[in-house]
């Protein structure tokens, strides 16, 4: 990927300039984040535990708003994009899969969880059903639709959590450690699904600690440092070497 593509903000999904975020207005979580992500990019966020990867994803998803700096999402200021009518468009375009699937699966059945997003968008019952069936089929969990989340294994929960976001048909998918604590087979099934999403033209941003999956799912790597800022940004090999990761 050329450096022009990385720095240009014309087609940017996210454009962050000198962004800083403080937990409870006190504890520094992110500092001096300058980042532009283009539509259709597949990016991996690497970094040590506590370096701010998950916080950055929540910031990109509009759950947190920057304490300082400017942030534009889909060409709009984040504060405008996540309020009122614009919030619907925002959540249709950007979907976040949380690290802990138990947080994401809050309904009584898998189907209800997958249907939650489309229902909030005000879609008709028929459209909701179609979207849910499609997402469940894509994640190969149609047979689990009527199951309660507490009956699922770790891998099944991860798939259900991803399906609950895919049913929104977002253009941008944020995945927080999607392969953590999974057996090798389930992990590679998910990795292939993430790769396919990228090939389908979606913007996919994934945080992970598993370096072996990085070349499969990303063309660009961001390495977060312990100083809560981005240490390196570039192609997989170059970024890891620069950041000594």
């Amino acid at each position, binding site marked *: 990927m050329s450096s022009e593509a990385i720095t240009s903000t014309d087609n940017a999904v996210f454009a962050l300039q000198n962004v800083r975020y403080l937990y409870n207005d006190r504890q520094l979580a992110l500092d001096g984040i300058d980042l532009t992500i283009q539509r259709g990019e597949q990016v991996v966020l690497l970094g040590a535990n506590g370096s701010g990867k998950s916080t950055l994803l929540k910031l990109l998803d509009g759950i947190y708003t920057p304490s300082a700096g400017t942030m534009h999402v889909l060409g709009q200021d984040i504060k405008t994009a996540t309020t009122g009518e614009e919030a619907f468009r925002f959540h249709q375009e950007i979907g976040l899969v949380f690290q802990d699937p138990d947080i994401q699966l809050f309904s009584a059945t898998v189907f209800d969880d997958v249907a939650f997003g489309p229902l909030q968008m005000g879609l008709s019952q028929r459209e909701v059903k179609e979207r849910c069936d499609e997402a469940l089929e894509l994640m190969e969990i149609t047979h689990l639709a009527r199951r309660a989340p507490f009956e699922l294994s770790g891998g099944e929960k991860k798939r259900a959590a991803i399906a609950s*976001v895919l049913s929104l048909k977002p253009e941008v998918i944020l995945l927080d450690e999607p392969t953590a604590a999974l057996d090798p087979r389930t992990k590679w099934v998910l990795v292939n699904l993430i790769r396919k999403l990228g090939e389908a033209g979606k913007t996919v941003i994934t945080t992970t600690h598993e370096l072996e999956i990085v070349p499969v799912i990303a063309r660009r790597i961001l390495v977060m440092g312990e100083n809560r800022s981005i240490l390196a940004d570039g192609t997989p090999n170059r970024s890891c070497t620069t950041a000594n990761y």
Partner: protein
Amino acid sequence: MNTTSSQGSVKKTYRRQFGWIEKTIAGIAAAIEQAVFTEEHSRQPGLLQALDPRAKLAMFLVVVLAASLSNSLVALPCLYLVLLLLARLSKVPFDFFIRRVWIGIPFFAGIVILPSVFVTSGPRLFDIALGALHFGPSSASLLSGTIFIARVGVSVSLAVLLILTTPWSDILKSLRAFHVPQIFVLLLSMTYRYIFLFLHSANGMFEARKSRTVGRSSGQEQRGWVSGSMSHLMNRSFKMSNDVYAAMAARGFQGEVRSYNAYRMTAQDWLALVLACLLAVLIFCIGRYVL
């Protein structure tokens, strides 16, 4: 001999020490197992499982009402036989169905009804004298006690049958048909969902405690640990509630609850509902006008 006795006392102490932890772990595991068992049965290809959950809930309410209004010692056992037949056709294990209802019911219902059986006026079957006070059951009080226990047994059997043949999520959604507010249904459904998560957390904490406890701890230490665990779980649940809200907001939730309703009442559901209503009328009439 002495060694054996001292070993015995150590064993006894050990048992006393870990009894409460093991009991708690076993209780939590049993609750989870019970829920999984119930959910599995509700997916069996049986007669009641095939019905619309709203129809089942309405049938349940109608028949429970009839059972609680019935005074007949003929109608209630007949109704119970119908329930046994329905349980059989719905592939509900007989032993579980009968045990679940009749092990606790006579005891709890008996405690409630006992004073009114023994404190009676008029002719008694036998007399128990406690100083100046005289107690004893009359044939009428025994009959009303038996009817009360039969009513409770039939009503609880109906509830167990409903729960074993309907997933919890469907029962909760059916409440919407009876105009229970959507927010109430959502809260109940989330409570049901997260109870299991916290049961797992609590189980993990108890198991971790058990694996690291070697010596004997005092009652004060144990109470301290239990209260510490409670506050830890409380903090976790508070953090999780914030995270869950964030996850809901990330999918577009803005305070208005919407739910998916895929239920369609078929001719079979209407027929079952009509039959349940007829059965309820029959039970009521037998009690009032026949026996």
